[in-house]
């Protein structure tokens, strides 16, 4: 169980998180939705420990997050964030390049690449030689390579065509379900949300404005949620022009 309690974080005068409370149960797939600049990425980076909150805390199974938490997570970044200077297989098996597993690192990388639908011919290419969709797949392979307990996905379908987005959604759903991992995804892609989520939380003005299951989302009459999910310009949410 990951618990986020009263999280506050400001950048100068800009208060991005203004008291976020959230609980994510083990094995569930939570999708966090919200408009651009609503604090989704900041929230996920604060949960990970990449940003330090001004107030509040993140606990894992009731104890404060430690450095060891990083060894139990995998993350797919919005732009994949692959290391340009390393071939694909070294990106995927990055954790194995040192330590006792390094002899088998390449074979392991090829196996994980196959799980995301990429052949062994991709292993020796560099990230710059791959399309955006393939880079996302490699990023996904890197995220799942160490068999993590918690997976984070930051805008996994941004910049992809609908077909490739569908492929990535299916892969995320499959790896999360097959591995029994907890999945936390941030997105503003409604198709992605429907494909991935067990539960949805909407962040608005730095707080969790609404949360519930997909079924509850369909029947909710919350005006903010309705406006956001239907994509309307008219409503209580004022876009940042």
């Amino acid at each position, binding site marked *: 169980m990951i618990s986020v309690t009263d999280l506050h974080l400001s950048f100068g005068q800009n208060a991005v998180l203004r008291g976020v409370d959230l609980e994510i149960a083990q094995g569930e797939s939570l999708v966090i939705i919200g408009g651009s600049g609503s604090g989704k990425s900041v929230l996920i980076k604060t949960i990970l420990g*990449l940003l330090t909150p001004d107030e509040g805390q993140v606990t894992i199974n009731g104890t404060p997050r430690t450095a060891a938490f*990083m060894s139990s997570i995998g*993350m797919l*970044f919005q*732009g994949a*964030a692959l290391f340009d200077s390393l071939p694909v297989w070294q990106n995927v098996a990055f*954790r194995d390049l*040192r330590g006792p597993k390094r002899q088998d690192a390449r074979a392991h990388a090829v196996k994980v690449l196959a799980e995301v639908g990429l052949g062994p011919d991709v292993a020796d290419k560099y990230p710059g030689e791959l399309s955006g969709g393939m880079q996302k797949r490699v990023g996904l392979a*890197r995220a799942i390579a160490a068999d993590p307990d918690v997976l*984070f996905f930051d805008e996994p379908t941004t910049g992809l065509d609908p077909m490739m987005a569908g492929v990535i959604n299916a892969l995320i759903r499959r790896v999360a379900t097959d591995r029994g991992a907890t999945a936390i995804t941030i997105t503003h892609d409604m198709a992605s949300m429907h494909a991935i989520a067990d539960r949805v939380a909407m962040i608005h003005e730095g707080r969790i404005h609404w949360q519930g299951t997909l079924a509850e989302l369909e029947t909710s009459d919350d005006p903010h949620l309705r406006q956001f999910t239907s994509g309307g310009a008219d409503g209580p949410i004022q876009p940042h022009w």
Partner: protein
Amino acid sequence: MRFLAALGAAVLAALASIGRFSMFIAHTFARAVRRPFYAAAFGKALLQIGFFSLPVVGLTALFTGGALALQIYAGGSRFSAEAVVPQIVAIGVVRELGPVLVGLMVAARVTSSIAAELATMKVTEQIDALHTLSTDPMQYLTVPRVFAATLVVPLLVAVGDTIGIFGGYLISTLRLDFNPASYLQNTVDFLEMRDIISSLVKGAVFGTIAALVGCYYGLNSDRGAIGVGVATKGAVVAASVLILAANFVLTEAFFST
């Protein structure tokens, strides 16, 4: 009053920058004695900083040595002291021009490259990705580069010194009619071990500065393409100024009487 406030703010900002950079240096050296050590990254940095800098260092040293010989000859002829060309070329190149020019070339080529690479990694979230892969970015990115630069820049300086002296030798023997054998003999006789040691120590210090500054600016860059540009420019300027300042301090330490 407004001027004093602006001056105070500028001084405070400068002191804060010095403090942040000092902390960065302390963190780097603390990690340098800790495991893991990334040997592959170190090897790659040795090649990038050392081997691939050889052409620019060689050409710079060659032309500078030649120009120095011409200048000393022209200046010395005013006092009938043309014969001191080999000695002054040797001392000038080994004590000052070799290490300083190599340091500045490394700042231009290596510091800029490190700053741009690391800033781009930050912009594209590769630094965050390292964190999520249980890897300390400073340990993985900074320590190998600083180690490599500290070790390899003295070697570049040695190569630069040799080629610089050779440049002076070429001009002196081909153009100024010096006797080749006596030119070399004068060079060897005049140089002291202290000159060579000071040259290599300067190389090590300049290499450390070049890599540290590049890493500091790269890892602390702002987001976006402008952030990368600002980091790169700032790194080259800061490294060049620090190298020249360090050169003065080291010259004072080695040669003050």
